């Protein structure tokens, strides 16, 4: 059984599983957003969690002081996601019945004093937070390592926990892409969201149906592409950034066969059985074509089959920015699957220009 869990935890299966679960969640929001579901899910998590914790290796990974924030992250993300969906489902039902959302009922629109209703309770939170932080600091000692040695980096060398998703992206992308371009797009995209958003609904109250697209897109990026990658990077990546199952001992000498090849090599050598051309643009022509198709020529198709109504409502500039952001986001799962299925290293590999995709 543990063997099976180890096997299914490998990024390919667990990521696919995450995608399936995500799809289920979006499709069956009213099921997920119910108290019944929460109870069963809690029970399931408690039982599997207890079983996981009975394993020495898993327990030693989980209880490393470094990893405490991630445990907190898992539970808070699960709870708040469920909570928002629960609230949204409630409101959706009311809106379907022609009522206003709960936040919009007259008793909830009544105004109250900032003192003590707000300021006093904020003080509570400050005190409780301080208590929590002090207790944490006492119980778990600072996870110090050996003195820094420029010639002998720790293995695995892990980024701070909140960056582990980015570090996991390094597995699939060139450092320039994973470290600079994609995070840049994430930041710019988040800043741009309020300007792209044209939907006036959902302001000040929970809802799902009225903002299905916006919420799904955000949750996909947040849960599947950010939180999930942090979990992988924290718990399932050991020495040499090799994958280790949750019950697998981090043996320093584990060897895995990962020989990744570029698209150009796949095309020229494997497919055409000829030598790779010397001119880099000729060599990378397939990758360049692919990229152009992906980012440019696909746009009219997307518009035709899906985006026409967005285009009509949003106007040209906002629409194309939205499409670009979605395509960029989709690049990550796309690249992950290409890697797993074709051991693809880079679509476009131009190390001569430090330009790899």
């Amino acid at each position, binding site marked *: 059984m543990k063997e099976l869990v180890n096997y299914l935890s490998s990024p390919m299966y667990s990521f696919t599983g995450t995608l399936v679960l995500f799809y289920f969640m979006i499709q069956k929001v009213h099921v997920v957003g119910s108290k019944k579901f929460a109870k069963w899910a809690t029970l399931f998590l408690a039982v599997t969690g207890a079983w996981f914790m009975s394993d020495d290796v898993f327990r030693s990974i989980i209880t490393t002081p470094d990893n405490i924030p991630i445990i907190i992250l898992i539970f808070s993300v699960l709870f708040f996601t469920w909570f928002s969906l629960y609230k949204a489902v409630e409101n959706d039902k009311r809106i379907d019945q022609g009522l206003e959302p709960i936040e919009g009922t007259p008793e909830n629109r009544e*105004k*109250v*004093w900032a003192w*003590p*209703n707000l300021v*006093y*309770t904020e*003080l*509570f939170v400050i*005190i*409780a937070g*301080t*208590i929590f932080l*002090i*207790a944490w*600091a*006492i119980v778990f000692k600072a996870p*110090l*390592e*050996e*003195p*820094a*040695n*420029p*010639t*002998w980096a*720790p*293995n695995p060398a892990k980024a701070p926990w909140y960056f582990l998703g980015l570090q996991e992206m390094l597995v699939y992308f060139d450092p320039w892409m994973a470290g600079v371009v994609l995070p840049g797009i994430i930041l710019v995209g988040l800043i741009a969201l309020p300007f792209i958003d044209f939907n006036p609904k959902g302001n000040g109250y929970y809802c799902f149906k009225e903002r299905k697209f916006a919420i799904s897109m955000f949750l996909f990026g947040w849960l599947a592409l950010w939180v999930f990658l942090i979990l992988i990077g924290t718990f399932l990546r050991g020495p040499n950034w090799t994958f280790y199952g949750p019950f697998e001992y981090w043996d*320093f*000498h584990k060897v895995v066969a990962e020989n990744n090849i570029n698209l150009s090599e796949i095309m020229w050598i494997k497919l055409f059985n000829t030598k790779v051309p010397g001119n880099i643009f000729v060599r990378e022509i397939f990758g360049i074509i692919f990229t152009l198709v992906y980012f440019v020529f696909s746009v009219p198709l997307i518009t035709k089959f899906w985006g026409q109504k967005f285009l009509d409502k949003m106007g040209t500039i906002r629409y194309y920015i939205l499409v670009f952001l979605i395509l960029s986001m989709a690049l990550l799962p796309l690249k992950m699957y290409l890697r797993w299925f074709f051991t693809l290293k880079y679509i476009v590999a131009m190390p001569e220009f430090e330009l790899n995709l």
Partner: protein
Amino acid sequence: MKLEPGMAYNTKKLNKVFAVLSIIFLFVVIWVVLDDYIRPWKAIQVKAMKIKQEVLNKQLKELAADIKPEEVKKLNALIVEGEKKVAENSKEIKKLKDEVAGLKTNIYAQKLLNGDYNAQVGALTFDYDHTVQHGDEAKAAKILTKLNGYKVQYDDGKEKLKVFEAKLKDTNEKIAKLELAQTGVKKQLEDYTAKQTRLELALSQTEVNPVWLLRNSPFVDFLDPTIKIQQIVVTNAADDRYFQKVPKVDRCTTCHVFIDQAGYETQANPYKTHPKIDTLAVGLNSPHPMKDFGCTSCHGGEGHRVNDFNAVAHTPQNEEQKKEWQEKYHWHEPHKIPQPMFKLSQTEASCVKCHTGQFYVPQADKLNKGRRLIAEYGCYNCHKIKGWEGLPKSGPILTKISSKISKDFAKNWIWSPRVFNPKSRMPTFFGQANNSKPEFMNKNVAEVNAIVEYIWAKSKDYQPVYKYNVGNADNGKALIGSIGCIGCHQVEGIEESFKSGTKFGPHLTGLGSKLDPNWLVTWLKKPTHYNPDSRMPSLRLTDGEANDIATYLLASKNEKFKNLKFAPLDKKIRDELLVGYLSQFDLKSTAEEKVAKMSDHEKTMELGSRSIGKYGCYSCHNIDGFDPDRAPIGPELTNEGSKPETQFGFGIEKIPHTREAWIWHHLEKPSRWDAGAPKAFSDLNRMPNFYLAKEEIDHMVIAILGQVSDYVPLQGQRRMIGGEEVASKAFKTLAKYNCQGCHKIDGVGGEILAAYEDKNEGPPQLMQQGFRTQTEWLNYFLTNVHPIRPWLKVRMPSFPFTSAERNDVISYFQGNAHQQTYVDLPDTVEWEPGEREGAIKLFNGLACTSCHAGGFTKDTPTAPNLHNAKQRLRPDWVEAWLANPQEFVPGTVMPSFWEGGVSTDTEVFGGDAKKQIRALRKYVQEVGVNGYPAPLPKNQ
């Protein structure tokens, strides 16, 4: 419940929440303060106080036995008596004391005044100069008047002060005189009980009283706590923090409270005194005082950490202690610490990093044994170790081997040396756990065949010059046991040779099944004939002696081994192996073509040469066709002790994943790492098996673990003073010829002496040899051996020293004894009046010639000929030797006539030991003859 308007919550409920949170917060704050305050080391220091109390109380009790109450009583009675006497003059004393008080007030007041006058003088001097400089003559004149006034006052004040002080001194003296009857006895009592008072004072400091509690209470304890972290900053050693090398900071004494204090030897750790406090470390007079070397310089570990027991990286010395620690301290393997503490039994490994260039480190017996073993087994041949360069190759030369043994013998020998000679140091390459598959065995057989064919093809012709005649084996046996062979060789059947435990030369067994008799006789008579660079010396054997010894040695046979038939060369396998080699950088088809073009002989030679290269035979043996300086096949061991543990491959072996365990198991059975997935023939581990004893491995592991890359600042390194550096380099020559196998040199070596019941019958011990003999004589002696102690059966060999080697030997002795090369030697002895007569009287009186008979009487001498002393010995040494012979040769039969500087003869020179010794030395010089004795004939 109805809420007030404008309120989302009930205020009373909010207040309750606030109260609960505040109380929790209070507790958490108390918790954090206590967590910060309560430290494991504090508990240890508090317990240490109790232990100190016990020890002091015990010492006080012991002391109480020494202090006699009647003595104290007597002194106290005297004091009372004195008080009475003093009381008679009490009026006068009171008057005088009042006077003293008045004088002291005057002095105090006068000092205040003088200070003011002095300040005014200084300020006005500046004002005056300043005014004159600006040309204001009138103002300057005014200032000058004022200044002069103060100067006068200041001078007066000084005079007054002197008068007061003189008076005070006078009065005090008067008082002292009047009180003398009492103070004298009081002082006596104080002296008598001084030690007790000191101990009581120390005891009072271990008391837990309110002041102690206040000083160590939370928050206040930043001021002046008694319970605190102790630390030693060690500039002699450094912690390499990669960006910066920082002095070591050792806080070990925070818990090891009494490590530097005698009197706690029987306490349990951490309260124990260092077991070698005076002889080795920690103590102020030891070679490594704690304030200069700290603790972790030698023991390793993280000395600056005091969080808890585990933070320091303590290493248990055995499984038992490990269990004990696990229970007591929750001990676990150190986490993220590259160099944990050394096991107690391996601490000597630390010596290496500072004692660079010293082959033998004093007091480090295990380390020295390990290094000796590395030298004996010749690890340095295949593994480069910094500092071990330039040592001779361990194995015999193979350039003329065909005249010495047969081909079949060579093949069987290479295959399995231990079948012929179980004590051989030639390691076993074949038939190991990793290459015992039939497929591999067949390939190994082909390799061994090719190696031997190659060596034989390259071997030069050699004709022994002496002919073997059967001699007397019994006499041969006696000779081997007595003339010194056993200083280097263990010989089968010779019991004495096993007592010494030497391993320098080969273990001699079964030679009758191995050697050509003529070769053996020639080798015994003149080893340099076969090998001009041989380390085997000539013992100046006569033909008869050589034949007797050869007869004895050849009688030992190993017919079983001789009759072994080695499988012939399988040409198919040979070609296959060759193709394997050639196709490494070529297509397989091309390699096959190349091999096909070669002749049969060429193929065998090619495989032989490549196999010698593969197994590294050339590192230990001289083989024609191989550059003697060719890089060895083993990895360098210079920094093996710092190699990260993750770089050791443990394969499927179930052993602890530590550096030490890996090295240990590697030495025990090198082939073990090939267990697991099948490996290709060419990828097998080539480290051969030396079949080392467990104890040997233990020692070698210490020596290898010591090879660390730690940075040691210059001031921390054991620096060579005087001629030590030259001596340390020159030691390689002594090691090359195994001088210390026979001679105990400055306390080291002399293994052969174990075979002698009376050590004086063995080779002489060389203590401060550079101080003992004259350089010219030693130089002459090394190439022209002549008898000094004719009664000894053991012979000083005639070594084939080059002039450079002679230089080394001499400079080693000079440097080690901190001596100049040449000393003043008077042409004629100059006597003081009456000195010569005294000398002769002593010479006869002490019966020097009863032992030093040579040239004086016709008796058989049992001590060196004194006539040769003039040219051989240094005058200063002769005097030092006469004063205390045991210092130079412990156990010598030379009597000590001047023990402790007291002469046994009280008549001559009034018993003045120094004068007597000097006179005798002069006499020995006077009777000395010029020129050196004729050398013993060498074998031509």
